[in-house]
């Protein structure tokens, strides 16, 4: 069953189409990854799903109902975790969750119970009387999530929920996403961290210039690129490596040096075997090799190939 279905969804600002005849379906129980560089139409699409901006053309169906005609129903069944925090600094954690849950018609003991549950779910039970101004960035992000889930929406849209937080809070949030999904919520997840998307999402759509340019499971997306393979070489120190010499080797497509991880990632044509020549090139540059790993293209490579841009740089 489709929880969400976008049918030829279009949003125009004058002549510019921010979203252009976008069609996709999110099925019940999925964690659906929505990937796109800045300006690809991700935020506009989410804003239209949330009924925050009007649709120019097309339709959005939530649980089989057109949201244009069933606005209240749609809003009641959607929870949005925005990228930027949307919480009141002058209200305690509990008051924040209680207030936002109250907007969905909850009142009395039920409201109290749901607010407490949402705080417990995000690990903020012991902070329910504290004000967000005293929270760490990670705790604020968790409160941001609690405010979006207390009314138990069928569809949760999470827009970059782990931006700029510590590893502990990040892991907590990723586990929360999985738990919410296990508890029956369908999730649309956007992130600039490709590894998060690879780890969490069951299906992914890549948006570019307001259109879906690829959609499917991770394996399906990776299979799009059949003429390319990846070689990752861990070295003692990659500092000072001249990538031009490696790029000149016939069959090499791209060379990326990661100074922090002391590794070199090289994309090559799938049909050629040039590993020996690459290793020779590194040895000639006095680079000490620790390990070599050959793999199929990553999601990042797929994204880069399809959009011409890196997700994190965009």
């Amino acid at each position, binding site marked *: 069953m489709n929880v969400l279905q976008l049918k030829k969804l279009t949003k125009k600002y004058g002549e510019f189409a921010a979203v252009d005849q976008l069609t996709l379906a999110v099925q019940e129980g999925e964690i659906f990854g929505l990937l796109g560089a800045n300006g690809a139409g991700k*935020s506009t699409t*989410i*804003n239209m799903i*949330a*009924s*925050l*901006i*009007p649709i120019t053309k097309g339709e959005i169906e939530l649980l089989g109902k057109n949201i244009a005609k069933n*606005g*209240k129903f749609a*809003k*009641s069944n*959607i929870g*949005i975790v*925005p*990228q*930027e*925090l*949307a*919480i*009141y*600094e*002058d*209200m305690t954690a509990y008051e924040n969750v209680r*207030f*936002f849950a*109250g*907007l*969905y*018609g909850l009142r009395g003991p039920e409201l109290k119970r749901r607010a407490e549950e949402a705080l417990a779910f995000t690990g903020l039970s012991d902070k329910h009387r504290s004000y967000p101004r005293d929270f760490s960035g990670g705790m604020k992000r968790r409160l941001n999530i609690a*405010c*979006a889930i207390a009314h138990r929406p069928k569809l949760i*849209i999470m*827009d970059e929920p782990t931006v700029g937080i510590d590893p502990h809070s990040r892991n907590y949030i990723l586990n929360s996403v999985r738990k919410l999904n296990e508890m029956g919520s369908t999730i649309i997840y956007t992130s600039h961290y490709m590894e998060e998307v690879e780890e969490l999402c069951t299906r992914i759509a890549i948006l570019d210039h307001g259109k879906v340019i690829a959609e499917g499971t991770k394996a399906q997306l990776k299979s799009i690129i059949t003429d390319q393979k990846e070689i990752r070489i861990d070295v003692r120190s990659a500092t000072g490596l001249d990538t031009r010499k490696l790029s000149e080797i016939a069959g090499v497509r791209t060379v990326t040096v990661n100074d922090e991880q002391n590794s070199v990632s090289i994309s090559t044509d799938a049909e050629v075997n040039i590993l020996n020549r690459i290793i020779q090139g590194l040895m000639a540059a006095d680079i000490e090799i620790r390990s070599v790993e050959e793999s199929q293209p990553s999601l990042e490579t797929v994204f880069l190939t399809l959009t011409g841009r890196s997700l994190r740089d965009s």
Partner: protein
Amino acid sequence: MRDTIWLIQRTTLAMLRSYKSLLLYLLTPVIGIGLAFLIYSGQGDVSVRIGIVNQDGEQAVASDVVHFLDSIRNVEWSDVQEEEARELVLAGELDAAAILPSGFSAWVKGGKEEFPIELVALEGSMAASYIRSYLDPYIGNLMAIGRTAQSGGESFDAVYAKYKAAEFGLLTEDVADTSAQRDMANRAIGYLIIFMMFSAVNLSAFMIKEKENRTYFRVLASPVSAKAYVASNVTVNMLVLLVQMAIMLVVMIAGFGIKPGLPLWQLVAVLLIFAWVAVALSLVIVAFASNSMAASAMQNSLIITSCLLAGCMFPIDGMPQAMRTIADFLPQRWLLDTVSKLQQGAAAADLTMNVLTLLAFAAMFSMLAIYKFGRNRDARTYV
């Protein structure tokens, strides 16, 4: 309605937790009345300081004139020499000096036509006019007695004695001067207008702040409508303005004893209409402002300038005609004019134009705000 009440609770809570806002909303009307009281409290009973130069010695008529001056309410007199009288008047230590020349009594008894007392005062002195208004009839009577005595063959002293012993006379009754009270009340209302407008914009700016911290979009992503959201803000805004009005009126009437000079219900009614104008204008400012700073800048420039021109801070009568013409296009002016007409006992029919103009301002601002809010679809800061 349930949604609106839920949002009203949140806005009220936010307001109550902001001590600065609370001070602005609740204390400023009192400060306004205090200011008005300080400025106008000196305008009540003012004594006239008069110096008397009696060069006619112990003559009975001259002494009686001094006694007469002494009997005038609000006159403080002192005995001065002629040479120092002018200096004291010029130095402002005396409001006027009355010189009774040598031979004054004989002059009066002789029935001469010319006024025998010289009054020394600054050009255009109100005090001199005040003293002259008492002295003219008194000395006029004495000179008339002098003329009558001469033509009738009776002695002046005999007629004068009868005059002094006369049972009939003119009874003077003091009427309370309410102009100072009215000025105080008008000034307090002027300040209240300023504070009401500032409060209205501050409360409407809650919506801008909530846009900036994105909670506004979270609210709009819920089943609550934008109309319910704005309605909740307007309701709280009107309630705060009502409280301000109540505080101002209670403190003004019960605390400072300033009477507004018109029935209370009439004052409340026109202030309520103006509260609508203030809230609608605040919505226009908020709808046009892109952020809190812009709203604050628009608030200061619009409110202070228009209140100054409309006569909220100073009486408009002293302003040039061009300014007064501009003031006719400001709602504050129409409110003050309505209050002024009510203080003068204008009939309801005479106020139709004023009330309709105020309502037109409110309707115009409301429609402008609704139009602008309807075109604000910028949700880019949310996701």
